[in-house]
């Protein structure tokens, strides 16, 4: 058996080829007297052992990882005084001098404190864990572990909202279970996803919209993640930081670490939450103007008729009265009712040297604030002879069960296997909504302005609308196995394999005799009964191999070399069917009058590799360079490997001796980074394929035919975003004030655009011009970000801390490859303007020329050219949170305000009512403000038609969160509850708008929320829900 020394030499010979480009041959210590350092690393707060902390001897390549009990042993340390450095995620790194006796041993027990100053935090990157100060980018970290128990967090996206500069969370519709969208540093793609890449415990986590979704609302798969299971999130904002994540990371990366076990006796954490969810919005009434028709001589003719302001303005009728009716609030039709929300969970963590564990289970249930009015229950009961089903009475409901088991097994002192697994079952029901005319919001907003046969709704009873059931059930299993090996002090390696699998079943159905009665509302005719369903299996596989070697080139220069290779395989298999005309009692399409089915398969494969070299000089200047290459199945056959380089510099300049001693300044870091990352096209965008259809050929029946459906693009490659980032981190006043300021510019080249081809190419089906996905466009985002953390008061009985973040963002389409862009009004793309900006003919002016108090078609000035109104995405955003601690922080009060500004929304709710359904106040009330009349008249004009008047400023300041948390005195909890700690929390979410420019119901109602595309419009979207939640946390 070879000795340790000879084995080390042998392995070095093996590894050298791998690291040869960097001259990574470790420094030997032969001939020098050595000793041993051993000790234990613990948490300074609770003295719990900290496994996996990196302990190293500065200026040497020797070190060790702490074991499960926090113990470490470093052999071969040079005798004499040496400096030991200890680093671990979430803790401030620390150095400590020890004297190593030659041939002897020194004990160095070290306690780490949780990171308070941001530079000393450790973050997770593609190459592993690194100190934030060595990383040339700004990386935001959210400590979910401490936040979720205190703040009103119901989804993982809410963890991100208003807490990080440059990160925008765009609200989904206000139904329980709806998803929001995430944009980091703006939108870069015209056609592909603008959502960030999600990494959970080292593997990719799917955040695509649920493909089996028939719930009428948008549901992203990220929303299945249980925030109670998260320890922390790192937000890697742009390509300059995310380059090594490659083709998928152009929109940034969110790296999630779930909670892990710690050595020691089992530590239990039980929590229970109860609350109320409500729809806080005040919906406006519908209106109807009444009058008499006028003949050409201006004389009244006939009886009472409905008369609009613009018709009265052109003397077609004379208004004499106005009716209004609000079905949203009328007893017979009010669909809202505050509903309950419950969560209960139990977590336990602990373990031994050999095995650490974290186990959790949680149940969550929430009933959306929609319910069938009693009047409707009685009406349907009478009509059917039986009470409506519970699902009809409460159509919006979410139930979620989550389990997680994270295990860490020490196979050898230098070999650890981490297995992290989570399972979630989500069952979501929603009210019939979306763009269906028979859907809830449409029926209310298009009501006639008086109480008609359907009690003020357009044509359906709300009880019948609730007869359409939408369900989405997800079973999601996510698991990763990570083998971490440290064969030598200077070398660590990992092998990660994992999968993220989601099985979904979704359907929309109405049983025979239920549902809307008029025409074809979504599929079945009238209330004949019908069902659409979709079963899908989505799996994402991750395979990741990596190694990192460290080497002290000199006493002042340290090298860190990382290599890695990954393969990702994404697959989706779906079967879909529908059946209309159900017999009584049937709830499947099996016996339907009309049945159809489909099958879909989507697979994507990606592989890539990277290498990074990082150089540290005197632990204050860090320079790194890296390159990644990727290839995916979605690229065209002729596309070459894509190369993603990265370079970064981080300089803690305040550590220099020559740095002037400035009053109040503790620390100053300058940083700058450059990098590229990509987004890959859709699976079939590059593919040439045929379409099938039947054709008459003269035979007795149509014959099956094949014709070219898509020409594909053999040269298709990913969109590649290049980013430059620079900034500084400033620590002031003994760590009480920390400032991060960052400027960035990112340019997405080769942005995919569905270029219209000439029809003569014959590469399309039907009337449309053929198109071809090409890498044509360029999109620029540039901005400034600022984050301030301040501890304003730090006393035992009173503390006050403030976290503020904000950003300015400018987005524009730089180039469209000389391709004619669509020129229709609405949200569209124009070179020189923001993506998905709002355009239409401008209302240049209006005046009541004839003094009749009405604005007619001839009294508005609408020049013909389309004019840019504004960005549909916020160009300014900020969040500010403040926490007051009383009585040694036993009582904490926190508030979070959220600001978005410099953007516009298409106020489509009002536009529809003023233009299509004619029941808004501006087209019915002659006393409506002239500006409102002008907007409505222009929207209804045949020659001057424009919805310019409904492009409205969307700026707002929102009272996003408020919480009060009380930690019970230890003597009480130990005596009464026999627990270590216990806290009671009361929190509220979406409390209101202290200020807003938006004239509509809610500035955050947005039906244009999507992973790709864009726009900002409100039509069938409900405003975000309000939550008031109380929670009890008990630790045993």
């Amino acid at each position, binding site marked *: 058996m070879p000795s340790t020394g000879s084995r080390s030499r042998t392995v070095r010979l093996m590894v050298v080829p*791998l690291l040869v480009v960097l001259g990574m041959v470790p420094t030997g210590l032969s001939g020098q007297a050595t000793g041993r350092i051993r000790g234990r690393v613990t948490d300074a707060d609770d003295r719990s052992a900290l496994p996996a902390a990196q302990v190293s001897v500065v200026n040497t390549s020797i070190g060790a990882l702490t074991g499960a009990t926090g113990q470490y042993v470093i052999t071969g340390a040079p005798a004499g005084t040496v400096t030991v450095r200890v680093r671990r995620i979430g803790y401030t790194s620390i150095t400590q001098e020890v004297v190593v006796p030659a041939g002897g041993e020194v004990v160095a027990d070290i306690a780490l404190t949780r990171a308070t100053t941001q530079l000393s935090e450790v973050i997770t990157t593609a190459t592993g864990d690194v100190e934030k100060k060595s990383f040339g980018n700004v990386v935001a970290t959210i400590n979910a572990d401490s936040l979720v128990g205190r703040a009103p967090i119901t989804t993982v996206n809410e963890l991100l909202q208003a807490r990080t500069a440059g990160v925008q969370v765009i609200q989904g519709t206000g139904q329980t279970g709806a998803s929001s969208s995430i944009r980091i540093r703006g939108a870069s793609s015209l056609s592909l996803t603008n959502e960030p890449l999600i990494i959970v415990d080292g593997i990719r986590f799917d955040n695509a919209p649920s493909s089996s979704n028939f719930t009428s609302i948008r549901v992203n798969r990220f929303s299945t993640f249980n925030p109670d299971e998260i320890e922390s999130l790192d937000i890697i904002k742009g390509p300059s930081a995310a380059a090594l994540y490659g083709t998928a990371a152009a929109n940034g990366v969110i790296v999630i670490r779930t909670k892990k076990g710690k050595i020691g006796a089992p530590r239990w954490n039980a929590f229970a939450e109860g609350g109320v969810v409500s729809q806080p919005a005040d919906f406006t009434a519908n209106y109807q103007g009444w009058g008499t028709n006028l003949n050409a001589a201006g004389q009244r003719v006939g009886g009472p008729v409905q008369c609009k302001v613009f018709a009265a303005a052109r003397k077609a009728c004379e208004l004499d009265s106005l009716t209004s009716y609000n079905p949203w609030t009328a007893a017979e039709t009010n669909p809202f009712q505050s509903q309950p929300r419950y969560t209960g969970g139990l977590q336990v963590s602990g373990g031994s040297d050999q095995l650490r564990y974290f186990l959790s289970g949680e149940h969550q249930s929430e009933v959306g604030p929609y319910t069938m009015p009693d009047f409707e229950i009685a009406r349907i009961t009478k009509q059917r002879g039986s009470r409506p089903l519970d699902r009809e009475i409460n159509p919006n409901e979410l139930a979620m069960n989550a389990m997680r088991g994270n295990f860490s097994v020490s196979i050898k002192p230098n070999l650890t296997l981490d297995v992290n697994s989570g399972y979630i079952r989500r069952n979501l029901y929603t009210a019939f909504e979306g763009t269906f005319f028979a859907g809830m919001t449409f029926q209310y907003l298009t009501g006639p302005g008086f109480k008609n046969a359907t009690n003020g709704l357009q044509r359906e009873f709300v009880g019948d609308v609730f007869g359409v059931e939408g369900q989405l059930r997800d079973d999601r299993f996510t698991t990763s196995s990570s083998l971490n090996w440290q064969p030598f002090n200077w070398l660590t390696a990992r092998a990660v394999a994992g999968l993220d699998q989601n099985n979904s079943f979704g359907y929309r159905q109405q049983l025979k005799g239920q549902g809307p009665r008029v025409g074809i509302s979504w599929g079945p005719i009238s209330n004949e009964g019908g069902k659409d369903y979709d079963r899908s299996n989505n799996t994402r596989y991750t395979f990741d191999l990596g190694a990192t070697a460290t080497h002290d080139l000199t006493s002042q220069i340290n090298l860190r070399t990382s290599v890695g290779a990954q393969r990702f395989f994404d697959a989706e298999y779906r079967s879909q069917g529908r059946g209309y005309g159900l017999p009584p009692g049937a709830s499947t399409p099996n016996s339907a009058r009309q049945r159809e089915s489909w099958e879909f398969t989507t*697979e994507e494969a990606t592989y890539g590799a990277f290498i990074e070299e990082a150089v540290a000089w005197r632990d204050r200047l860090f320079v790194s360079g890296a390159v990644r290459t990727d290839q995916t199945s979605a690229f065209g056959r002729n596309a070459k490997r894509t190369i993603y380089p990265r370079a970064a510099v981080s300089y803690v300049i305040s550590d220099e001796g020559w740095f002037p001693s400035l009053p109040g300044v503790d620390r100053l870091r300058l940083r700058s980074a450059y990098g590229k990352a990509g987004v890959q096209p859709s699976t079939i965008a590059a593919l040439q394929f045929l379409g099938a*259809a039947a054709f008459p050929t003269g035979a007795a029946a149509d014959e099956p035919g094949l*014709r*070219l459906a898509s020409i594909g693009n053999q040269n298709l490659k990913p969109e590649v975003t290049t980013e430059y980032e620079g900034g500084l981190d400033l620590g002031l006043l003994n760590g009480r004030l920390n400032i991060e300021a960052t400027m960035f510019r990112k340019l997405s080249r080769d942005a995919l655009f569905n270029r219209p081809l000439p*029809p*003569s190419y014959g590469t399309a089906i039907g009337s449309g011009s053929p198109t071809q996905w090409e890498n044509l466009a360029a999109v620029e985002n540039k901005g400034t970000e600022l984050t301030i953390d301040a501890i304003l008061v730090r006393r035992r009985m009173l503390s006050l801390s403030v976290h503020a973040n904000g950003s300015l963002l400018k987005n524009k389409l730089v180039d469209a490859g000389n391709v004619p862009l669509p020129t229709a009004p609405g949200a569209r793309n124009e070179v020189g303007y923001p993506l998905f900006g709002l355009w239409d003919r401008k209302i240049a002016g209006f005046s009541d020329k004839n003094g009749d108090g009405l604005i007619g078609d001839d009294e508005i000035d609408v020049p013909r050219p389309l004019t840019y109104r504004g960005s549909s995405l916020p160009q300014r955003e900020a969040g500010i949170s403040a926490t007051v601690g009383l009585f040694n922080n036993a009582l904490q009060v926190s508030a979070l305000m959220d600001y978005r500004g410099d953007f516009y929304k298409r106020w489509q709710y009002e536009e529809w009512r003023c233009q299509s359904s004619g029941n808004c106040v501006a087209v019915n009330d002659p006393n409506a403000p002239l500006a409102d009349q002008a907007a409505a008249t222009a929207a209804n004009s045949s020659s001057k038609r424009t919805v310019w008047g409904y492009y409205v400023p969307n700026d707002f300041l929102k009272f996003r969160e408020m919480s009060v948390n009380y930690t019970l005195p230890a003597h009480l909890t130990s005596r009464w509850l026999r627990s270590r700690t216990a806290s009671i929390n009361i929190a509220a979410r979406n409390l209101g708008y202290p200020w807003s420019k938006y004239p509509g119901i809610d500035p955050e109602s947005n039906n244009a929320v999507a992973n790709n595309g864009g726009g900002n419009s409100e039509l069938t979207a409900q405003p975000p829900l309000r939550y008031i939640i109380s929670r009890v946390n008990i630790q045993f």
Partner: protein
Amino acid sequence: MTHSTHFMTYAALAMLGLAACSTSELLNVQTPDQITPDKASSAVGAAALRASAIGNFAAFYGGDYGGSFHGLSITSGMLTDEIESARGGTEHLDSRAQNEAVQPLNTTWAFVGQSTTQTIRAIKALKEFAAEGTATEKATKATQVGHLYALQGFAYTLLAENYCSGIPVANADDLNPKTAVLTTAQMYGRATAYFDTAAATLGTTASDVPFRSVVAVGRARVLVDLARYDEAAAAVAGVPTSFVFNISYSTTSVVNAIYDWMNGTLNYAPADKEGGNGMDFISARDPRVTVIRNAAGAPTPRAGQDGAIHFTQTVFPTGSTPMALATGVEARLIEAEAALQKNDVTTYLAKLNEARTALAGLAPLTDPGSQTARENLLFRERAFWFWGTAHRLGDLRRLVRNYKRGAETVYPSGPYYKGGSYGTDLVLIPAQAEKNNPDFKGCANTAA
């Protein structure tokens, strides 16, 4: 070496191997939903491509998918005196002032590209994959390929007759699509070449006989357009008067567009003496152009030229009524025209009347007495025989080009019945989307 060192070695090798692996293995994915061209590389694939080529030609000639698209029979007829725009939105074409950005020009032009390229793809596939193991299979293959060549000949003939000079036609190379911009003369040249190839490809079985007549009529049609009347007459001499070659339609796929747009949705109507010069397609009560007046009801009928509810046609009484592409009647009318060119009035009349025997109820014609009147009679006969089959625009152009008539004496002219006046367009033009073609800068010549 220990297990650990083995592991590290393998890991390093694995990483290097991954980076160097062949993409075909690491990037192998299944796409069963997409029928890639290689999956159609078989005899059954070729048959499916052939069905699509025939169907696409049907769409181009006179078809519609689901009430939204227009074949040439509608678009061409609208520019002439055959068809009127009943519903708003297509008056630009009806009044000879085309808007290239909107219906129906854009859909018809889309069908042009789809038909001409799909036929090439189908011919290529049939040649490569159609079975020819037996004599019967060989004969069938020859018939099918010859059929498609004949259709392609007609496609170019129709393009030459209806569109301006200088239009782009694609090469159907789907990896590197390109277009050639062809003059009218070049389009006639290509049409002739395709007819020649068809004739050379077709066999001698009974199945080939009708296609040989199709080729004969097609060749003659080109020759007439080129004012080579004697050659044209000679070409169709063997085509029996009763011969009819139909393009098929279906109520469930490619629908007869005349029926769909006139009877199904009441958007268009047969015209009567449109723009003064137009034929009396309605008032003549000719059995070849049968019409009825629409009844009130759904869909809502529109007011016609006379202010009352529009007429509609019954020539194509259902969505699956076929549309004749080549007929023995056309052969006789070509012979009549050739005779007229030689002042052989007897043959001229005989041929016209021989054609009229093809439909019961048509009385024999008599000599109108003058050359101009004879020409008018000939073109009137053609107008009624070929109503709704994309012949009329070619005939109007021939009247201008070959018979030296003034355009304003044969095209609808003067006040437009919905307001304004007729424009001056004489030919169809490609859709605006064709401007995405770097090879196409617009029509080279829009004269008749």
